């Protein structure tokens, strides 16, 4: 028998019934701070009354009390994406608690579309475009070292990045039947992992946008940009720590929004966030927004202190393992505690010194002519950048004003602002640093677009929305946007976008094939990171094929193999990008001897050009 009196029981059953039925979707419904289950002033001591017996049938779940009446139920079938509720519908009642709700049919269809489109746009032509990059090579190389050598790097690991990313990559490579060669080139198997992580990220972004907005429009729009943006496709295919960081970040947010609000959700969210930080350190910039979201979610929960503590504990645990690792290796602090950046301490590498160095690096700025914003990002997708920035600003403005009732827009806006600030502040900017901005801009665009569309009266919306969607779709087919079609070279016709059309990686495959046919494995080769694993993991091995970065800076390689002399180089395998990088990296003269070999003592023995990509192999004449 229930412990309640009959009146209590009736109330409990009624509330149970309301819980099971899908709630009405009111216009303007967004993520809400949890409603208090009791007035804070009248907080009563925690009570637990349990009745347990082994093998007893489970008792009906007593519901949480809804302090306000709820709108009448509406079946999921009536909720079609883009359709506005009638203007004369019942006035919106304050929703009780935000949280990810089960998907109806329309929602399932929308999610399926999002996932399939992500699979198609990111999976098709995955191994052909873009060109294998240096950074892809670095991370696959390090994953290789984890599996093959039990080390974090084939060379000295100097804490340039926290290792969680390539540890995950290494685990992935390890479970594949042929490890690095499962999909041909080693970087291909990494790209398959990126594809899987992207699909998971699409799911998380969809659910986050849906929870924040209470509609299907926002997640559809958000995931559309996340999937179809050429900027997104270009970088999200690559094996980059930033892609993995985005996955953990979105997972962390998703876990906080789960409806069940399990006590340990804060812990797992914190762990996911901590892993995102030890995947790519700049994830730390998202901590304030995520913690704020957590605080708002648990505000009226009697277990809020545990939830907040667990989040901090989870995040701290994951991050502290990195510091512990350095401590155990005696590499936390620099030699003689010297943090002098102009005179790097000798002896051993140091995590804290490297962090100090990274903070003080000043090699780039965002808003400069020739910067990546203008040369890479804007040409690839100016639409996303402009619209995303406007949406972020709108989210911040609207979110600030409605933060007490609904923190969703504020959270979305600040998440984007945090990474935008990180980019805008300067310091080091590499082209793929735009990656975390993409899903967050997409989220903001989705939320603001949803808000704007809700203002259209229902009758007008029936006509206007399909027309608007069609118009936007047409725009995206214009070569100017580059989403599906892009301009050809002068005199050439417009063609399908490069992301679906242009094969580039076969250039590198031909390059490797030539090396294997013509260069003895014992020769000393300066190359880029993108082909390192291919030369070290497939027989015959090329043990003296080393990247120019390591040849210039790692004493083991610089002094042990090449003795800093061009005469100890047999071949240089370089792309135009690599040559630029070598020049940039020669500020202190560390690559001078390699450039000397390249410029003054070499002849081209092989070359290939496609578009603006140029690969060549140089034999050094001694």
């Amino acid at each position: 028998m229930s412990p309640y009196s009959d009146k209590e029981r009736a109330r409990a059953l009624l509330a149970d019934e309301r819980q099971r039925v899908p709630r009405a979707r009111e216009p303007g419904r967004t993520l809400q701070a949890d409603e208090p289950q009791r007035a804070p002033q009248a907080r009563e001591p925690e009570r637990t009354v349990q009745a347990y017996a082994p093998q007893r049938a489970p008792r009906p779940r007593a519901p949480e009390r809804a302090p306000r009446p709820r709108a009448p139920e509406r079946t999921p079938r009536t909720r079609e994406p883009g359709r506005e509720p009638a203007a004369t519908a019942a006035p919106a009642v304050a929703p009780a608690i935000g949280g990810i709700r089960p998907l109806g049919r329309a929602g399932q269809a929308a999610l399926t579309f999002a996932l399939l489109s992500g699979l198609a746009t990111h999976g098709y032509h995955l191994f052909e475009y873009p060109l294998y990059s240096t950074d892809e090579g670095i991370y696959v190389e390090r994953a290789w070292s984890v599996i093959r050598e039990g080390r974090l790097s084939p060379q000295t690991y100097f804490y340039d990045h926290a290792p969680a990313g390539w540890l995950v990559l290494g685990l992935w490579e390890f479970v594949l039947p042929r490890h690095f060669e499962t999909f041909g080139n080693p970087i291909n198997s990494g790209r398959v992992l990126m594809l899987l992580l992207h699909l998971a990220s699409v799911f998380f972004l969809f659910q986050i946008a849906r929870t924040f907005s209470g509609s299907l429009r926002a997640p559809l729009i958000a995931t559309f940009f996340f999937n179809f943006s050429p900027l997104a496709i270009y970088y999200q295919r690559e094996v980059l720590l930033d892609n993995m960081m985005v996955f953990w970040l979105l997972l962390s947010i998703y876990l906080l929004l789960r409806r069940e609000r399990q006590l340990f959700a804060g812990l797992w969210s914190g762990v996911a966030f901590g892993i995102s930080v030890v995947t790519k350190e700049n994830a730390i910039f998202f901590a304030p927004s995520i913690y704020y979201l957590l605080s708002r979610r648990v505000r009226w929960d009697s277990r809020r202190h545990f939830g907040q503590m667990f989040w901090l504990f989870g995040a701290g645990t994951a991050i502290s393992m990195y510091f512990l690792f350095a401590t155990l290796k005696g590499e936390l602090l620099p030699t003689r505690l010297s943090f002098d950046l102009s005179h790097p301490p000798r002896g051993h590498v140091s995590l804290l010194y490297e962090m100090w160095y990274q903070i003080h690096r000043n090699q780039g700025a965002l808003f400069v002519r020739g910067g990546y914003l203008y040369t890479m990002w804007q040409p690839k997708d100016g639409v996303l950048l402009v619209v995303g920035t406007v949406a972020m600003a709108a989210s911040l403005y609207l979110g600030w004003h409605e933060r007490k009732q609904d923190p969703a827009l504020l959270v979305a806006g600040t998440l984007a602002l945090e990474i935008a600030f990180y980019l805008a502040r300067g310091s080091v900017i590499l082209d793929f640093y735009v990656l975390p901005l993409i899903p967050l801009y997409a989220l903001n665009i989705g939320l603001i677009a949803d808000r704007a569309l809700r203002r259209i009266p229902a009758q007008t919306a029936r006509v206007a929305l399909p027309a608007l969607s069609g118009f936007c779709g047409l725009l995206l087919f214009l070569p100017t946007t580059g989403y599906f079609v892009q301009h050809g070279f002068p005199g050439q016709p417009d063609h399908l976008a490069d992301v679906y059309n242009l094969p580039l990686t076969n250039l590198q495959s031909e390059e490797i094939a030539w090396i294997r046919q013509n260069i003895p494995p014992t020769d000393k080769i300066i190359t880029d990171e993108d082909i390192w694993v291919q030369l070290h993991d497939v027989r015959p091995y090329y043990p003296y094929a080393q990247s120019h970065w390591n040849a210039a800076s790692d004493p083991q390689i610089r002094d042990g193999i090449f003795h800093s002399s061009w005469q100890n180089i047999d071949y240089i395998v370089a792309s135009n990008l690599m040559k630029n990088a070598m020049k940039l990296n020669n500020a202190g003269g560390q690559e001078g001897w390699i450039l000397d070999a390249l410029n003054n003592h070499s002849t081209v023995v092989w070359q290939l050009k496609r578009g603006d990509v140029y690969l060549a192999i140089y034999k050094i004449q001694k």
Partner: protein
Amino acid sequence: MRDIIYAVIVGLSIVVTIQSAHTLYLTLYTWNRPPSEASAPEQFQPPRLSFTVMLPARHEEAVIGTTIGRVARANYPPGLMQILVICSADDEGTIAKAEEKITELRRQGVRNVSLVVFHDKPINKPHGLNAGLAKAVMDVVTIFDAEDDIHPEIFNVVNTVMGNEQVKVVQGGVQLMNFDSSWYSALNVLEYFFWFKSRLHYHARRGATPLGGNTVFFSRDLITRLGGWDESNLTEDADIGLRLSAAGEPIRIVYDDRYVTKEETPPTIRQFIKQRTRWSQGFMQTLKKGTWRELPTRRQRRLAVYTLAFPQAQALLGLYVPFSLLTILSLKAPVLVALVSFLPVLTLLGHFLISVVGLYEFADAHDLKVSPIAIPRLAFGWIPYQLLVSYASMRAVLRHMRGISNWEKTQHIGAHRELTDARGLELGEEPSRVALFRQGAGESAAGG
């Protein structure tokens, strides 16, 4: 050889981490359930059941009078209550104090309190309870310890629960209160807090419940049928809980911050160790006795064994700490081995953080204030407290191996008691003993 040591370190670390993480889960079990599942009855049913309250006491001269008074003035019809103070014949001091109080109450018209004196052996709590059970006449039998501060509504709560749910066994909440008396009292308080508020619910749900020694209510018929308490067992409460679980009897746990029975932590470390030794040894006796084998499902039996064997594991953990320190200082283990061996430290940190939050939850629930010194004291006392518990467990193992099983009584001084109200003074109850405790613990008296 080194590889073997590394393997042992890694293996032990993983086992300890898993065990610690599981304990952490149990510690917060209730908090992880929907709040509505644990709601207390909002309304009481009219008094229907009658209660025999048994107050076993030995050398409790300092506190027994107040306890009798508080039970006597519970908010329940006196005609439905029978209060039995149980003493052994040789405990003349407590008998005298009890008789004094009973006489005083009779002068005030309270006639439902009587004294039960037993002359035979063994002189221990379960024997006293059985002696009291023979004199019990009411529907429900319950036990309170001599130092307990019960809530006046506790009988209404149990009357409602038993009546509504037709359960025959109810375990009420017991809570140590004096969290700032000494360096270890906060940790002791939190143990009770998490045990009764959370972990015991898990046990009850799984059907392997080691009951507490007081504020537990049994149908008299049931307990009589079971044969009363095991007089050879140092933890007769855990034993009877398992016997009830084996008999398939559902046990209801009621923990409501308002209605908890308030107790005190042992006033000195020596007393604390004695108490812990007794509990650990009692668990070992119960394990050896084999009642757990009668539990119907494998899961219940596993849980019972895990719980009862834990003191022995704690003893081993106590040995592990110096071993661990020795290896840290002398062994240059590979980084991966060292990282894995650090995992138990992380779970330990998790436990500590839970304790910090728990302390504030506890204080908030009872309108108490956590002083600034409480958290540093908690932090610095954490490891020594675990070592203390491990030492007590090791002592219990040794006593068990040597066949020593005498009842080491815990001293009570009423440190948890607040200043009594006017009604209490009217009934002749003693004022707060906090000053006495501080004196006893070696600190200067704070007055009162």
